[in-house]
């Protein structure tokens, strides 16, 4: 216990990560980049394996000002958003169905699990056959990968619902839908948001993997094209844009989460 902890006005224990407060992240990133640059120089890593960060930075800039990256970024972004939306509907829908009914759980959870273990890359051709070469097949791929973490967290969240609140609702003769919206849903939000946080990132990966197989636009396709010509700096530049998209999307989810599940913020009566 440090002295300062009790004397100064208390801060909430764990602030939500926000960009303006991003200084430590920036410092950390700079340190990481410096280490990377140094080790590339030190170990004489060939440029066709890992390029120097300066080279990558130049490519990132070039990709931006030439306008080359934008259409790819946009396409992938749309795929991710559409896929994620489908994943949320799918994950929450199935999660709620399963979480509320042990019978359905036993009936379909193993099937879902079995389906989930199928590497989506292995059925990418099928997806293309079913959903075409455009946005849909990639969005479906994103959805198929992202729905599972959402599903599992929804089920876990429903399982931990406070039973006394359920009893209260029962005493009010609440209808199942009311019980759901007024007790179960708010109660499971922290779980749901953890699921969404994982889900949004996996939706991104899903869209990219979908593009690896059957696409000529999008960041994933760009990665494949640049990889083929051993344009490693180019690949890293795309990865950087990918990370930016991931950070933005994840930040959005976190912001919504912190706005919504505000009561999970620890009360003031604590010192750490």
């Amino acid at each position: 216990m440090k002295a300062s902890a009790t004397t100064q006005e208390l801060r909430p224990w764990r602030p939500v990560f926000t960009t303006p407060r991003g200084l430590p992240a920036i410092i950390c990133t700079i340190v990481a980049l410096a280490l990377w640059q140094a080790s590339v120089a030190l170990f004489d890593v060939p440029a066709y394996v890992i390029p120097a960060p300066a080279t990558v930075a130049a490519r990132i800039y070039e990709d931006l000002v030439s306008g080359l990256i934008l259409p790819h970024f946009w396409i992938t972004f749309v795929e991710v958003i559409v896929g994620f939306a489908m994943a949320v509907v799918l994950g929450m829908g199935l999660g709620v169905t399963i979480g509320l009914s042990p019978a359905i759980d036993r009936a379909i959870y193993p099937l879902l699990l079995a389906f989930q273990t199928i590497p989506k890359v292995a059925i990418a051709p099928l997806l293309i056959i079913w959903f075409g070469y455009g946005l849909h097949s990639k969005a479906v791929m994103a959805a198929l990968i992202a729905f599972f973490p959402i599903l599992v967290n929804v089920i876990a969240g429903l399982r931990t619902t406070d039973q006394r609140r359920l009893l209260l609702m029962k005493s009010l003769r609440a209808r199942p839908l009311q019980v759901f919206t007024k007790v179960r849903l708010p109660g499971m939000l922290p779980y749901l948001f953890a699921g969404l946080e994982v889900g949004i990132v996996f939706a991104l990966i899903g869209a990219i993997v979908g593009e690896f197989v059957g696409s000529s636009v999008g960041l994933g396709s760009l990665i494949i094209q640049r990889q083929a010509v051993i344009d490693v700096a180019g690949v890293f530049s795309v990865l950087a844009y990918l990370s930016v998209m991931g950070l933005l999307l994840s930040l959005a989810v976190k912001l919504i989460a912190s706005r919504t599940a505000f009561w999970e913020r620890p009360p003031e009566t604590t010192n750490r």
Partner: protein
Amino acid sequence: MPGGPEADRLQDRRLAGTTRLIEFNRVAKVYRAVDGRPVRAVDSVSAAIGAGEFVSILGPSGCGKSTLMMMLAGLLSPSEGEIRFKGEPVFGPQEGCGIVFQDAVLFPWRTVLSNVMLPGEVRGLPKAEQERRARAMIRLVGLAGFETKFPHELSGGMQQRVSIARALSLEPSLLVMDEPFGALDAMTREQMNLELQRISLDLGATVVFVTHSIAEAAFLSDRVFVMSGRPSTVREIVDIDIPRPRRIEQMNSDAFGGYVSRLRDLLDHRGEPA
């Protein structure tokens, strides 16, 4: 130990003439336990409660009062025996039943106002009506000005009062209250007692009320059920033959003092300590 046909008759006799609202028929509850040693919490309770009656339950800690209340409210099923409501077996909570649990059971994501509005919301009352009732109840329990606070911003007693306001908000015809005033100071408690008496009489509500305060039980009740230690049953029923409503001053009367010491004696002579 009481129970058995003789006791059954005893309970029945007492209620002759009034409408039976709730009947317990040799009700028992055995809880399964994680450690494999089941607990027989309530053992063969037979009793009846009339419509509009105010019944208090007194008993040592852990004797099964909360268990009894939950069964009565249709939230927990008896392991043995049967509970009837208006002659029908109980298969779930009754319409128009307000409950105060032993702990407040508030929704942390709702403000005080919104917590108290919950029953109206569930019943589908118009928003304005919900809010009007909720604000009135919040004022009643002395929390005016705290409508926009969240439960974790309240003191223990304030949380308990929110849950009382919630239970009262729909003008229930049956009120089940498990130590509702346990965390209140003497003055607030006295006020709440008077309010509860007024409301229950105004509404003609049947009230089943758990308390550890012998004086409170005597002051509020038509009848007081005194429970024995675990495995518990209703050991004795004391009629408080003073017409309701009662005034605080009456608490200093001899008649009242007699009831209090009678109840105290009954509690003192309970079986094993819990």
